[in-house]
C-alpha cells in the first residue's frame, strides 16, 4: 500500500488587499485613507496525496490553485490548518525538505539569463550538494531524456521558449526531487513542445516514482498525465477523485449513430427504449448513458445487422470547461 506523501487538513489562506476606486478622488482617498480588505483565497481545504500520484488541479483563474501549490512547496505560510509534505511542514523550509521538492512555473525562470544553461545547472547541482561527477552524469541523462544538447552551451536569452522550458526543467530536476509542483508548465509552448513535455513528465514519474502536482489550463496536460483531479472553486474543493468519474459526472451520456441495412431494423431499434435524438432514412442517432453503454451496444450488435456505427463524445475541453464556466 502506498503511503501519503502530502496531507492537508483545514488549510486556509487569506491576503490583505488594498482596494482603490477609479479617478482622482479615488486616488487621493487611496493615498490618505487606504482601505484594506481581507480576502480568503483558500478555504478549509482537505486532501491527501499518495507517493507517486500525478494529481491535476482544475479551476478558473483566481480559484486558488496556484496559492495551494505555493503553500505546499513552502513559499507561503498558511493562515490556518495543518500541512505535511514529505514529513515536513513546508513553510519551515528545512534543507532536507527543500532537497525533496521542486517548483516549475511556466514563463518564470530560474536560469541566469545571460549565461548558458549549463552554468546554471552546475550552480544548482552545487546548491543541492551534488558532486561534480554526479552532476555531469545527471545533466547527461536528463538532457538525453529532454532531447537537448548544443542548446546547453548558448546563452539562455538566445534560446526559444521550448528550449528554455526544457532547460528550466533540467535545472529544476537535477537534484532528483521526489515531489514536483508544476504551475502551468506548458504555458506558451507550441503543440509539439507541449506533447514532448507531457511525455517527459510521464516517463519521469514512471522512472523515479515522483509525485507530481500540476495546474494547467490545457486539458490535454490533465487528461494525458492525471488519473486524479482536484477541482477548486473560490478557494473550496468542489471535487476530488478520478478524472474519469468526473467526466462521467459532467457528461454522463454518449451519442451513438447507427446506419442500419434496412428501415425495418430502425423500427425494431425504436422498440429498445432508447433515447432517440433523430432518425434519417436508415440512420438512427440516440443517447445512451455511459454506465449502460457497453450492454446496450452489445445487445444491438447481437440483434441487428448494422452497416456502420459512430460514437460521439463531447470534447474533453468542453466538459472540463463546464467546471470553469458554470463553476460547478
Amino acid at each position: 500500500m502506498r503511503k501519503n506523501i502530502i496531507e492537508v487538513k483545514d488549510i486556509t489562506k487569506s491576503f490583505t488587499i488594498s482596494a482603490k476606486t477609479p479617478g482622482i478622488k479615488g486616488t487621493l482617498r487611496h493615498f490618505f485613507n487606504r482601505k484594506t480588505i481581507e480576502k480568503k483565497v483558500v478555504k478549509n481545504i482537505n486532501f491527501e496525496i499518495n507517493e507517486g500520484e500525478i494529481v491535476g488541479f482544475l479551476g478558473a483563474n483566481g480559484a486558488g490553485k496556484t496559492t495551494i501549490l505555493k503553500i505546499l512547496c513552502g513559499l507561503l505560510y498558511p493562515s490556518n490548518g495543518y500541512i505535511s509534505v514529505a514529513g515536513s511542514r513546508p513553510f519551515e523550509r528545512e534543507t532536507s525538505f527543500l532537497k525533496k521538492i521542486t517548483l516549475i512555473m511556466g514563463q518564470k525562470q530560474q536560469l541566469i539569463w545571460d549565461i548558458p544553461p549549463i552554468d546554471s545547472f552546475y550552480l544548482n547541482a552545487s546548491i543541492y550538494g551534488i558532486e561534480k561527477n554526479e552532476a555531469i552524469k545527471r545533466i547527461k541523462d536528463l538532457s538525453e531524456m529532454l532531447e537537448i544538447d548544443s542548446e546547453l552551451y548558448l546563452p539562455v536569452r538566445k534560446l526559444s521558449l521550448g528550449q528554455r522550458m526544457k532547460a528550466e526543467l533540467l535545472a529544476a530536476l537535477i537534484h532528483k526531487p521526489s515531489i514536483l509542483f508544476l504551475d502551468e508548465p506548458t504555458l506558451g509552448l507550441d503543440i509539439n513542445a507541449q506533447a514532448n513535455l507531457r511525455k517527459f513528465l510521464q516517463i519521469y514519474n514512471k522512472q523515479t516514482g515522483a509525485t507530481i502536482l500540476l495546474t494547467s489550463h490545457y486539458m490535454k496536460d490533465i487528461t494525458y498525465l492525471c488519473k486524479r483531479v482536484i477541482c477548486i472553486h473560490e478557494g473550496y474543493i468542489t471535487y476530488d477523485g478520478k478524472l474519469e468519474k468526473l467526466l462521467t459526472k459532467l457528461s454522463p451520456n454518449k451519442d451513438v449513430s447507427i446506419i442500419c441495412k434496412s428501415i425495418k431494423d430502425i423500427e425494431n431499434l425504436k422498440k429498445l427504449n432508447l433515447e432517440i435524438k433523430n432518425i434519417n432514412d436508415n440512420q438512427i442517432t440516440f443517447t445512451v448513458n455511459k454506465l449502460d453503454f457497453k450492454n446496450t451496444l452489445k445487445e444491438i450488435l447481437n440483434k441487428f445487422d448494422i452497416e456502420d456505427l459512430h460514437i460521439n463524445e463531447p470534447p474533453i475541453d468542453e466538459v472540463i470547461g463546464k467546471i470553469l464556466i458554470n463553476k460547478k
Partner: protein
Amino acid sequence: MKNSSIYKFSTLFKTQYANMLEYRAEIALWAISGVIPFFMLNIWTNNGLNESINISNVMLSRYFLSAFFVRQFSVVWVVFTFEEDALLGRVSPYIIQPLHPFIRYFAQHIAEQITRFPFALFIAIFFFIFNPQSLWIPSFLTIIISLVSIFFSFLIQFLMQSIIASFCFWTEKASSIEKLLFIPTLFLSGLLAPVSSFPPYVKSWIYLTPFPYLIDFPASILSGNQANITEGIFIQFLWIILFFTIFKKSWKAGTKKFTAMGL
C-alpha cells in the same frame, strides 16, 4: 561537508563572475562613475581647504584615492536587485532552494568587485601619472588591515541594504527607504570630506553612527592618515553583528508575510 560547502561557494562565485563578465562595459562605466573623491580632492586642494584641517596636499590626495578604492569595493545595490526580483517573481525559486537568497546576492557583489578591480587599478595608475608626488606603497600589513576594513565596510553596507530589502515583504517599494540613507552616507561617510575635517561637536555624534566606518575609516588606514585601527575594526565588527541580527529577524518575519507576487 566542508568540501561540499567549498564547492558550493566556488561554483556560486564562478557562475556570478561569468555573469558579471557579460557586463564588462557596464562595470567599466560604473568604475568611472565612482570618481566623486577625485572631484572632491580638486575642490579641497584648489581652495586650500586642507590647511584648515592640518592635512598636507599629498596626504589629502592619498586619502581621496583611498576613498575611491574603498568606494569601488564596498558599493552595494542589493536592495534594488532584490526589489526587482521580488516584483517579477524571481525570488520565489530562490526561497525554496537550500541556499539563502542573499548568499546569491552576496556572491554577485563579490564577483562584481573582482570584475571591477582592473578598471579601478587603471584609474589609480592614471591618478599617479598626473599626481606623481602622491605615489605611495603601503606596507603589507597596512594592505591586509585595509582589506579587512574595506570588507567589513562592504558587509555593513550589504547588511544595511539587506534589512531594507527585506521590507519588500511589506512594501513593494523598499528601495525608497534606502534613499533616506543616501544623504547621510554621502555626507557622513567621508566620501566628500575626511571626517577629521568636521567640527568637534559633529564628530562627537557622527562616530555613534556606522557611516564614518564605511569610507573614512578604511580610507584613513590605507592612506596612512591617523586612525585608531583596533577600535575602528572592533566597532565595524559590532555594527556587522547588530545588522546581521536585525536582518535575520526581519527576513524571518518578512518571509511569513511573503505573497509570492509576480507568479
